[in-house]
């Protein structure tokens, strides 16, 4: 074997190995310490993300939290001032929008008013230079996917909001993106339509098996659709995890307050598995904190039950209630003056004194300024502990 052939073989080997690697372990999109500033204004601070291929991700946060900025960084409409953005392991900081393997569904859809539905969906494939027959097949397939087959010849302004939404999704997907970016696409739709589209988007994502990155400020939407949620605030990822993790184990006051309804109180962790709040000690399932550490205590309204005064762990006075269809939302005040939100199945009488009860595992403890890594480590440690205890 001559030297040239030998070298070629080596190159080939390393290449194929690299390919293996990208297929098995490299995230499809990765942020390494990404930051973005305008002049002195820091919009994003040191963001680290790792998105796996084929999953439904949600960036959740209030307006101004930086979630859309992250989306624009992924799509290439913005360039980071610090750090690296990687696509399948390659840095793409300077790759222009039109060269990235991803497409966006914009908040106001951005449909071309000078084209009908068919031509809108055909825009990407025709730019790519596909043949007429291929374009027609692609558009037909996409319109079928979003259930708009009968609307191919319609003009854009003849469509309802929901239909425009579907055209925007079909148009973005017609380019066969590896990642679909969705910028609050459902915010302009009414409640019922939004629910329907949540379900359909999830279905489309699972059918196509591509990665979705969905931006929303609606926590309900995020919980219903996502495999994984990044909760954003002030340009920082506050917490990331599965919807269940984030709902059941919020890391801090912001997350607990933003995701779902919460009763948040100040408390003291007297010892492992013993927390003190509203002047009483309660058994709980958290551990690993300093003795007498100041903490915040979270109790979800649906975990609280009303009972007789004798059976209650706390005694409260019913202050207000409103009917919500499947439950009554009750506001009650305890003897320390703390307000409690309770979801109860039975109607109460305003002014009545009742007992409030909950299980030890319903008490969730949050430490002040705990980092996500420390939080995860602590949770893991005492979850093992409690398993040991049970065993």
């Amino acid at each position, binding site marked *: 074997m001559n030297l040239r052939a030998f070298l070629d073989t080596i190159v080939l080997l390393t290449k194929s190995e690299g390919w293996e690697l990208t297929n098995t372990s490299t995230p499809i999109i990765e942020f390494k310490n990404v930051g973005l500033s305008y002049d002195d204004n820091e919009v994003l601070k040191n963001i680290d993300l790792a998105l796996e291929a084929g999953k439904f991700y949600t960036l959740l946060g209030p307006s101004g939290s930086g979630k859309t900025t992250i989306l624009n960084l992924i799509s290439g409409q913005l360039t980071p001032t610090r750090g690296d953005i990687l696509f399948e392991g390659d840095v793409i900081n300077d790759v222009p929008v039109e060269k990235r393997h991803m497409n*966006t569904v914009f*908040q*106001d859809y*951005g449909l071309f*008013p*000078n084209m009908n539905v068919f031509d809108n969906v055909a825009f990407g494939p025709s730019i790519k230079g596909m043949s007429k027959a291929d374009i027609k097949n692609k558009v037909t397939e996409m319109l079928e996917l979003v259930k708009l087959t009968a609307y191919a010849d319609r003009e854009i302004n*003849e469509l309802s909001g929901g239909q425009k939404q579907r055209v925007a999704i079909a148009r*973005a997907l017609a380019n066969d993106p590896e990642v679909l970016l969705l910028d609050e696409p459902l915010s302009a739709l009414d409640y019922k339509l939004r629910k329907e589209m949540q379900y359909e988007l999830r279905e489309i994502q699972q059918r196509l098996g591509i990665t979705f990155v969905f931006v929303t400020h609606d926590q309900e939407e995020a919980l219903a659709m996502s495999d994984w949620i990044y909760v954003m605030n002030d340009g920082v990822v506050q917490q990331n995890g599965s919807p269940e993790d984030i709902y059941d184990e919020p890391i801090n006051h912001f997350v607990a307050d933003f995701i779902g309804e919460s009763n948040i109180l100040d408390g003291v962790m007297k010892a492992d598995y013993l927390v003190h709040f509203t002047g009483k000690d309660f058994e709980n399932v958290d551990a690993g904190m300093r003795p007498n550490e100041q903490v915040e205590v979270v109790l979800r309204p649906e975990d609280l039950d009303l009972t007789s005064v004798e059976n209650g762990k706390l005694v409260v006075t019913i202050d207000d209630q409103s009917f919500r269809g499947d439950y009554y939302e009750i506001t009650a005040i305890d003897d320390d003056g703390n307000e409690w939100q309770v979801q109860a199945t039975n109607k109460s009488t305003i002014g009545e004194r009742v007992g409030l009860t909950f299980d030890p595992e319903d008490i969730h403890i949050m430490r002040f300024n705990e980092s996500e890594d420390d939080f995860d480590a602590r949770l893991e440690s005492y979850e093992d502990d409690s398993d040991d205890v049970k065993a």
Partner: protein
Amino acid sequence: MLGKIKWANIYLWFVFILLYLPIFFLIIYSFNAGDVMQGWSGFSWKHYGELFADTRIIEIVVNTFLIAILSSLLASVIGTAGALYIYNLKQPLAKNVLLSLNNVLLVSPDVIIGASFLILFTVLGFSLGFTSVLLSHIAFSIPIVVLMVLPRLQEMNQSLVASAKDLGANNWQMLSRVVLPVISPGILAGFFMAFTYSLDDFAVTFFVTGNGFSTLSVEVYSRARQGVSLEINALSAMMFIVSLLMVIAYYIISTRAAKNKKRGAQMMLAATEGL
């Protein structure tokens, strides 16, 4: 309530009659058998015959339309490019300066523009004639086109551009397939506006026509000084009909183009009756 509407209608008709009366007066006398505007001596096509026999006037009509079409076409291209440039400027200062320069040209008196062109052409040693008229018409039409196109761009949804890029379009594809079609009503309005301005411009043209070459407005003016021949009336009548046809053409084109759009043909230029 009813009385109010009635008065409004009467007022409206009064204004329109007042506006159109001189033109109808002119047209009616173009059919006069006599040679003056005083006294009706019977119906005749005589002046139309004279008009078509007058090769100089026919040539001038052709020149006038040629100048109007060429200048408005070129001004539409340059003006649209200019509007796109201004629209894409990031610095507000540069944007405002350019816009102001554009608007100053629009409001400055024709006499000054005409005189300055005359000085420019003389200084450059440029011979006056068809080209000098064409160039000056293009120049004063560009700001008109910019003015008509820029609002279209500004009200265009920003995410159209983002979407086109997102779907893989390069700058040219984005421009030709999305932006230009979307702003085409503005370009069309700009074109027609520039066309009518060119067609009935007197002041600027008067300065830069030179010897021999002439456009209609300048010719009519110079002939009127020697006493109005009814041939001019015949010509004016025909120009009026042409203007009318142009208004109708603009209406049809813009409604067809805007057939499927919520916003379509806006205003029509009442100015089109021209001469």
